[in-house]
């Protein structure tokens, strides 16, 4: 993955990655007087890892919130799978195959790891209330089928040992992992990861990087990734979009972006 920058520059690497899955055009988002995002456009192609970077407060999280319907930008439009979206709700985004993890872990704290990840299967389960109340026959078959999928995810993320523990008491790094598991359980087409490695030690970061790459390679899941660690961004992503004060200041391959003067200025004093 750590390809020589020379090989990448100039070549639009992502061109190899298929058609546009999501495109954001001229998005502007304001909160009262605060301009969180101003006229930002970019696209995410099928199968790529697309990093969104920028200093704190640049509007990265807000951008994800626009994509999955938590926020509704005042201007601009978002097209997903060729369909222009008008004021989608988060649960619609979910049924369209967009999953998400949060910057500050948003797990269901009172539930076990297993139940948290099982919740990711909600949309794929459709036995009605009466079958559920009986918990026999079709409802049980369904529950078992989804339990198998969830156990595979648990194995994949190597969290078997915390399967039955309530997630509220787990260490932060494991919580982030469970949250990734919950998003994976939705079998998303587009996975939005908001700083999945924040607050982790080196070893945990390496594990998480591997999981993200595996998800991308093995399941072909398209990933939009917000990350501060430039090393990680360089390693993982196919293309990078850089935001600063709500505006896009650069967009391209990691190497291009790294060499960009505006980006260097924005990150002046910041590691890497």
């Amino acid at each position, binding site marked *: 993955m750590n390809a020589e920058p020379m090989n990448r520059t100039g070549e639009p690497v992502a061109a190899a990655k298929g058609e546009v899955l999501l495109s954001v055009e001229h998005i502007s988002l304001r909160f009262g007087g605060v301009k969180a995002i101003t006229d930002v456009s970019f696209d995410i192609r099928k199968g790529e890892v697309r990093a969104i970077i920028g200093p704190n407060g640049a509007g990265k999280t807000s951008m994800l919130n626009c994509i999955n319907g*938590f926020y509704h930008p005042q201007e601009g439009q978002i097209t997903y799978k060729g369909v222009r979206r008008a004021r989608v709700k988060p649960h619609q985004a979910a049924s369209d195959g967009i999953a998400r993890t949060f910057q500050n872990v948003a797990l269901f704290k009172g539930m076990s790891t297993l139940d948290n990840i099982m919740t990711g299967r909600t949309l794929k389960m459709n036995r009605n*209330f009466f079958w559920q109340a009986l918990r026999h026959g079709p409802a049980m078959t369904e529950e078992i089928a989804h339990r198998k999928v969830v156990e595979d995810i648990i194995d994949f993320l190597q969290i078997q040992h915390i399967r039955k523990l309530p997630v509220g008491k787990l260490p932060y790094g494991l919580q982030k992992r469970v949250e990734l598991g919950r998003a994976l359980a939705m079998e998303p087409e587009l996975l939005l990861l908001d700083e999945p490695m924040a607050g982790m030690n080196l070893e945990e970061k390496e594990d998480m990087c591997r999981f993200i790459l595996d998800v991308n390679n093995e399941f072909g899941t398209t990933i939009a990734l917000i990350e501060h660690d430039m090393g990680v961004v360089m390693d993982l992503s196919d293309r990078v979009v850089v935001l600063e004060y709500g505006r896009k200041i650069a967009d391209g391959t990691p190497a291009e972006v790294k060499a960009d003067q505006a980006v260097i200025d924005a990150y002046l004093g910041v590691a890497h």
Partner: protein
Amino acid sequence: MFYREAGQFKSTYTADMAVFPILQDRIGIAVILLLAFVGVPLIGNDFFTTTVMIPFLVFSLAAIGLNILTGYTGLVSLGTAAFMGVGAYSCYKMTTWWPDMNIIVLILVSGLFSAAIGVFFGLPSLRIKGFYLAVATLAAQFFLQWAFVRVPWLFNYNASGAIEVPLRTVFGVPITGATASPETRYFVCLCLVVVLTWLASNIVHGRIGRSWMAVRDMDIAAELMGIKLLNAKLLAFAVSSFYCGVAGAMMIFLWYGGGEAADVFNIRLSFNVLFMVIIGGLGSLIGSFFGAMFIAGLPTILKFGLPAIGIPLAGATAEHITFMLVGALIIFFLIVEPHGLARLWQIAKQKLRTWPFPY
């Protein structure tokens, strides 16, 4: 020593997903059911059955109802008594509309009326939560209680305003009314509670229960899992009110046997059920039983139990002690152990599992 899972390996998900995965737990449940179905009718006298067991069962069901809403879905309600009242009054109306209908069916159908009213008053829950929702349900409490007194149609224009519980038989056995024996009423209550608890347990352990808890713990993330918040919350109100409604109908038809129902379903009852849920354990079905046992049983034990073992205690004193104990315990549980008696029970089981070698 004897309570542990050693050697009990689960080879299928079905076994692992069982509500009581440990053999000893299943034996325990069987023993409790045996005691309830055979032991109590054999040993207990009428006094014990009517003042302890029937109230305990009715309150347990109401507590399960509120627990579904407050403990599992995180929506506080102070309208429990009113929703119970809806069950009682609709059961009464139905006995006059369909005198020949099986009374047990009517008691269950009463829950549906209550569910509908509950959903209606649950509508604000999409916009407001916590304290404000509690106040909105308080409005439901006062409005419905007002209706129970002021809408004479509800009590068939009775001069006294009371509900009269008619004699109804099933297979020739009187179930409700003056001639129904305490044992019969107890037995009917027990069957209803066992079946409804089983259904509730199934619901909370499946997709729907997980959706409720997801809404409770982190509603924005729940929405992102594709859970529609309004649907999940309204379903919680519906199921919760159904249970409360059935409990209310049982209360008047199988316990009180009629009377001034409007007085019964007052705000104090709402609070009492809430206390049961808090002391028993938020988000625990078994806790609902603990809570009901505690709140419904404590006054009786103090009033009749203590004098029986030679400690004299005036009725008024017993009442004061009850208030103080319950108050202290609520503060204790809210601060120290929000999962209530159910959690203490779990800890005890955990200790037992490793006893006598805790490491």
